[in-house]
């Protein structure tokens, strides 16, 4: 997918991808935005029809088009539901890229925010860590508590006010980049495996403890772990937000950092990232210098929970408090994006002697989070309307965690 600036992303897409949808509607009941609005344009079938209209030259990528593409949560529930095998993930990324290409949603405020987030902050680990440190200081010095208690927040704009309570707590340490485990478990019967761990971007700041756990668990299961320095954000944020070139640049950096020839697997504990990383081959299909490595990479990417099941993990030997209840939350992007379904059943089998709680239907968890935390007013408005089926399951704030926690702790 080599796009020079003047081409139309949807027109350039192989027409069979656009044409694959036979508008049967079987995906509609799985789509959170259709559920909330009951409008075709907010459904997978409707969105694909709009994309096809753009591909056919019947419609420009207008503001309304762009709004619809950004109203889509990218949860990919529709892709799993679709019997016809529509490649929605691909379509959706191209539709957003087209929206950005023509600047359908451009306005000074949005441009500035995007520039700051995508081009500046998430494009460089160094900057991200700097901001993380500042946020950590804000939280550690008790400033956050002060701001919350003093009611200072009331002075902030409404959107910030709504988002502030959801700001995640920054961990004390970052993930140790450059880490390489001495193989610690020579007695283990399991063959020594070499795996690389991607630390992620947000996860590196706010879930580095989960990253540490990931490394620990892998080592306990006989893996030699590499956390290469020089790795960056996986680029999913850029890919999902129509910044195709930046997504490619980040993918290249990661391919440079990880030696895909030597590693048995590239481990990720955030399902959304994994979903994107599996498509590095497609992302770089027009880049001969990287394609061969990108293909290997895509083959070797594994979600931590999937990989542990694959290698036959060792059940922890320690005793668990008899009151502790376990559950397994299947992340949307793990199930729909990465098509990995085996871990849930496997875990409930392996831990059946413990207090196991079957997490109710999982659809709409991403949706619930997006609906309630998004700065997009339409999401919040629709959330109130579509409350019944998209509200998060009960439980103490567990749904506020991004997917890393859920998948790696299962």
């Amino acid at each position, binding site marked *: 997918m080599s796009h020079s600036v003047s081409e139309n992303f949807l027109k350039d897409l192989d027409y*069979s991808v656009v*044409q*694959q949808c*036979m*508008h*049967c*509607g*079987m995906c*509609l*009941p799985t789509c959170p935005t259709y559920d909330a609005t*009951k*409008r*075709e*344009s907010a*459904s997978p*079938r*409707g*969105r694909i*029809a*709009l994309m096809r*209209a753009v591909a056919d030259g*019947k*419609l420009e990528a*207008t503001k*309304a*088009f762009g709004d*619809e593409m950004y109203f889509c949560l990218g949860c990919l529930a529709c892709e799993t539901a*679709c*019997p*016809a*095998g529509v490649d929605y993930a691909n379509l959706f990324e191209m539709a957003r890229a087209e929206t950005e290409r023509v600047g359908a949603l451009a306005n000074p405020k949005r441009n500035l925010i995007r520039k700051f987030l995508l081009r500046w902050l998430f494009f460089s680990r160094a900057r991200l860590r700097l901001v993380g440190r500042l946020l950590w200081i804000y939280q550690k010095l008790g400033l956050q508590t002060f701001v919350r208690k003093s009611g200072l927040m009331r002075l902030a704009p409404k959107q910030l006010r709504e988002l502030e309570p959801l700001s995640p707590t920054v961990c004390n340490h970052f993930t140790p980049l450059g880490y390489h485990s001495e193989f610690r478990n020579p007695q283990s019967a399991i063959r020594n495996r070499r795996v690389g761990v991607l630390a992620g971007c947000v996860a590196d700041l706010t879930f580095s403890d989960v990253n540490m756990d990931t490394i620990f668990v892998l080592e306990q299961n006989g893996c030699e772990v590499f956390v290469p320095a020089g790795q960056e954000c996986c680029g999913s944020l850029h890919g999902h937000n129509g910044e195709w070139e930046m997504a490619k640049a980040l993918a290249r950096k990661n391919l440079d950092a990880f030696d895909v020839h030597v590693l048995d697997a590239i481990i990720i504990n955030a399902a959304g990232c994994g979903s994107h990383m599996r498509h590095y081959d497609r992302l770089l299909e027009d880049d001969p210098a990287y394609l061969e490595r990108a293909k290997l990479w895509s083959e070797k990417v594994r979600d931590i929970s999937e990989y542990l099941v694959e290698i036959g993990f060792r059940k922890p030997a320690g005793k668990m408090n008899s009151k502790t209840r376990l559950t397994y939350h299947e992340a949307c992007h793990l199930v729909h994006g990465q098509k990995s379904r085996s871990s849930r059943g496997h875990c409930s089998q392996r831990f059946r002697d413990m207090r196991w709680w079957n997490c109710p239907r999982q659809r709409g968890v991403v949706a619930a989070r997006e609906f309630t935390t998004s700065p997009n007013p339409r999401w919040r408005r629709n959330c109130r309307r579509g409350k019944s089926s998209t509200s998060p399951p009960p439980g103490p704030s567990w749904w506020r965690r991004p997917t890393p926690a859920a998948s790696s702790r299962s």
Partner: protein
Amino acid sequence: MNANILTELSRLLGADRVLTQREDLLTYAFDGTPILNEIPGCVVFPDSTEQISTILKLANEQRVPVVTRGSGTGLSGGSLPVPGCIVLCTVKMDRILNVDPANLTALVEPGVITMKLDEAAQPHGLFYPPDPGSMKISTLGGNVANNSGGLRGLKYGVTRDYVMALDVVLANGDILKTGTACVKDVAGYYLKDIFIGSEGTLGVITKILLKLVPKPKARKTMLATYSTMQAAAETVSAIIAQKIIPCTLEFLDRTTIRCVEDYAKIGLPLDVEALLLMETDGHPVVVEEEAAAMSRIAKENGAVAVTVARDNEEATRLASARRSAFSALARVAPTTILEDATVPRSHLAEMIGFIQKTAEKYKVKIGTFGHMGDGNLHPTFLTDERNTDEIHRVEQAFTEIFEKAVALGGTITGEHGVGLAKKKFLPLVTGPVGLGIHKQLKQMFDPNGILNPGKMF
């Protein structure tokens, strides 16, 4: 579209229930039917019978066409817009008003999703039998308007068998209430029956009283595989000839099996020519007996193997895999045109053979599946709408298939309706007298021709 009408509609429904933006209209330009596409004038989402009555009154006065739409999964272009029309979409009228276990009925609005009603009936030990392949998303209004069938049609019948009463808004805005909750009712003509299968051409259905049925205590699901399609068809005829009425006898051919397995990954055998999904339900003892007999008959008629679903879960997985058949076929070709020819069950084997020969004659690819127990086949042409030459051959092929079906005493459509796609062929079935009556009825109910004009005939 006339601005006054739009203002009037917005005043009546609220602006957010009237869509006029091009980006919205484009997404209502089609239903589940391939190729057909037409942009409407506007889309409205009424919330009550009264609102619908006002809309129709207005449309009738201004002579604006109205196309009623449920979830738009129809396969004959029934809810396809006509130029400049109002699309009246019922999906926001989706309340189940009551489930009445004492009378074994449910009162619903037309936008209720078929499966939701079945789910609401389950806690009462009841179920709603009509289960079209699209039941996860089709609306009950659409089911009634198309008189939809399903996988259990063989034993339980089709939607018509469950409709007890209807509220219908007529073209001039009058509200007709027809039918009662009584099991017996012979007061006057059975008007409700005229609206069942009327495809939105006679009135808009706004409330439906449906019959529910006690849930059978047991069920058993089996898969029989065959090395020829004829053998599967003969099995079906033989089972029925031996006076067994299973609830399901569904058929998939080789192409369809591959596509379904590719999607559902449930371990269907890929090296067979045909597969029968058979299910019997009812009293546990009877179920055992019937299952044994069906298995025996299948083997006597050439089944290579007969396997029994281990548990309910596996049975449900098999049935939902079958439901995905049509969409799954789209995996192998950009355009899938599915037909709905139906024949008396004794002619199934002959019809299947004819379909195969016709496909060869016109050099077109076909995947066939269907409700074999009902004699209802879905030969599906796997083609590409951009290949005009091939599309032409496809048209010739299905014309011959329809003619053959009618010659065998069958019909051009068993369940998908006539709509736009089969309009040309309706006279084959109705004959001139029947067609005349159709036209007179339409004229009487809708003298200005505003309701779904140009559909059916």
